[in-house]
């Protein structure tokens, strides 16, 4: 990949490195240096691992405007694209493509994520959540909430939706962990990607031979019709499998920890059976926690002027939603977790044509989890000191590796 090292533009010589570290003791807040950049201006320069200095967009309004701007490209193969890690000749799924090909492929997988289809899955998700809590309560009164609950919930759901055998979960969870880890070597990530694509490709073969009522079988039909290559279908399967459980699992575990650290807010959630209040609480947790903390990555196709600065064609752009969701111009007292506030306009799922496809499913799963777990396990508490909890500082999705709890 060739990269454009920009030496022009404001602040480039002293551009701070990105991503920035979080402050010890403030695991739920964006890095202090990122907050400082937001205070200094909306358009800043940062320095990446490869020495390139793309733009960082810090303010909520500009973040939304840019992510919805057709002059911005998500095509990872374009020169100037600010890649978070070295690229190694893999092929890419539609989240790293532009329209019209992005739209064509995305529309092939939107059907299961309509509000009605997702709502129809709610009783099944409730059953999964209740079953996992039953198992937890039947054993000793302590557990790692990540392994016992946070990871199995979305994993069971996405396996069911895609038609992936849950019995293979050790295999794909291990590989997806490596794939999204910033600290894994490029060779390791490449191997994990090959493992997952190979697995999905083989599964696709089974689905084509014996279609069932699931998303992968639907893609198999498209492959048979010549609308999609089998390789592309496998890549889409990897994307959905990965996105389907890494994100939601981290929201469940990190959200639980945030609530345990804010007992007054947890009490609000435990005390309500109003689905609107639960839905509102989920939106606020999404705004506050921002587990996709690496920023949306784009490259400008044309010159774009924003607040007196000009992003030149070919320059990289990073849009970190975590700091956008803490913009004091949009959210009053933004660093406070306030489950009663209206947080629905947050950009935790991104914005523009690439906004998270699975967001209705994620919201529903989180609503079921947050309205069930603390009611059924009212004495749930952290079984460690906060500073002992291992946070995922190195991953492209933020969260905790383990969450020791007792009840």
């Amino acid at each position, binding site marked *: 990949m060739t990269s454009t090292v920009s030496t022009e533009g404001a602040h480039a010589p002293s551009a701070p490195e990105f991503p920035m570290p979080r402050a010890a003791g403030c695991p739920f807040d964006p890095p202090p240096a990122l907050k400082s950049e937001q205070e200094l201006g909306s358009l800043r320069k940062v320095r990446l691992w490869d020495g390139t200095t793309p733009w960082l967009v810090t303010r909520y309004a500009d973040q939304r405007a840019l*992510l*919805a701007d057709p002059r911005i490209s998500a095509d990872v193969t374009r020169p100037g694209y600010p890649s978070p890690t070295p690229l190694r000749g893999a092929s890419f799924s539609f989240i790293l493509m532009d329209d019209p090909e992005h*739209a064509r492929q*995305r*529309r092939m997988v*939107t*059907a299961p*994520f*309509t*509000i*009605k289809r*997702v709502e129809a899955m709610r009783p099944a998700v409730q059953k999964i959540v209740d079953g996992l809590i039953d198992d937890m309560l039947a054993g000793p009164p302590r557990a790692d909430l990540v392994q016992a609950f946070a990871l199995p919930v979305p994993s069971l759901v996405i396996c069911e939706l895609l038609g992936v055998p849950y019995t293979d979960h050790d295999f794909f969870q291990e590989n997806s962990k490596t794939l999204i880890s910033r600290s894994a070597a490029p060779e390791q990530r490449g191997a994990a990607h090959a493992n997952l694509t190979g697995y999905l490709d083989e599964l696709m073969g089974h689905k084509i031979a014996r279609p069932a009522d699931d998303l992968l079988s639907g893609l198999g039909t498209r492959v048979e019709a010549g609308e999609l290559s089998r390789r592309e279908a496998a890549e889409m399967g990897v994307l959905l499998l990965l996105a389907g459980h890494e994100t939601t699992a981290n929201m469940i575990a990190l959200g639980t920890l945030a609530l345990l650290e804010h007992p007054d807010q947890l009490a609000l959630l435990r005390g309500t059976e109003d689905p609107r209040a639960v839905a509102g609480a989920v939106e606020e947790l999404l705004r506050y926690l921002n587990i996709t903390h690496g920023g949306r990555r784009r490259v400008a196709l044309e010159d774009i002027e924003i607040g007196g600065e000009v992003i030149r064609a070919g320059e990289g752009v990073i849009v970190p939603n975590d700091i956008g969701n803490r913009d004091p111009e949009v959210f009053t007292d933004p660093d406070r977790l306030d489950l009663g506030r209206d947080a*629905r*306009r947050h950009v935790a*799922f*991104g*914005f*523009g*044509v690439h*906004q998270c*496809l699975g*967001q*209705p499913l994620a919201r529903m799963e989180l609503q079921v989890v947050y309205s069930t777990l603390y009611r059924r396990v009212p004495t749930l508490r952290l079984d460690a000191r906060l500073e002992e909890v291992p946070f995922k500082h190195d991953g492209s999705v933020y969260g905790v590796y383990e969450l020791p709890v007792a009840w």
Partner: protein
Amino acid sequence: MKVTLDQDKCVASGQCVVAADDVFDQDDDGIAVLLDPAPPSARADDVQQAAAVCPALAIRIQD
């Protein structure tokens, strides 16, 4: 208020349906459908919300 929806822009996020399910619906692939192009003023807040959260900026409102 008058509401217009550009289905070609829609990315099937469904957030308009969550905000105002008497004004918006989705087809089988998730593409938004406008049920009521002239909703009563009592629905103004929810319809504004639908337009604000639409990631594709596919909803336009005229007073």
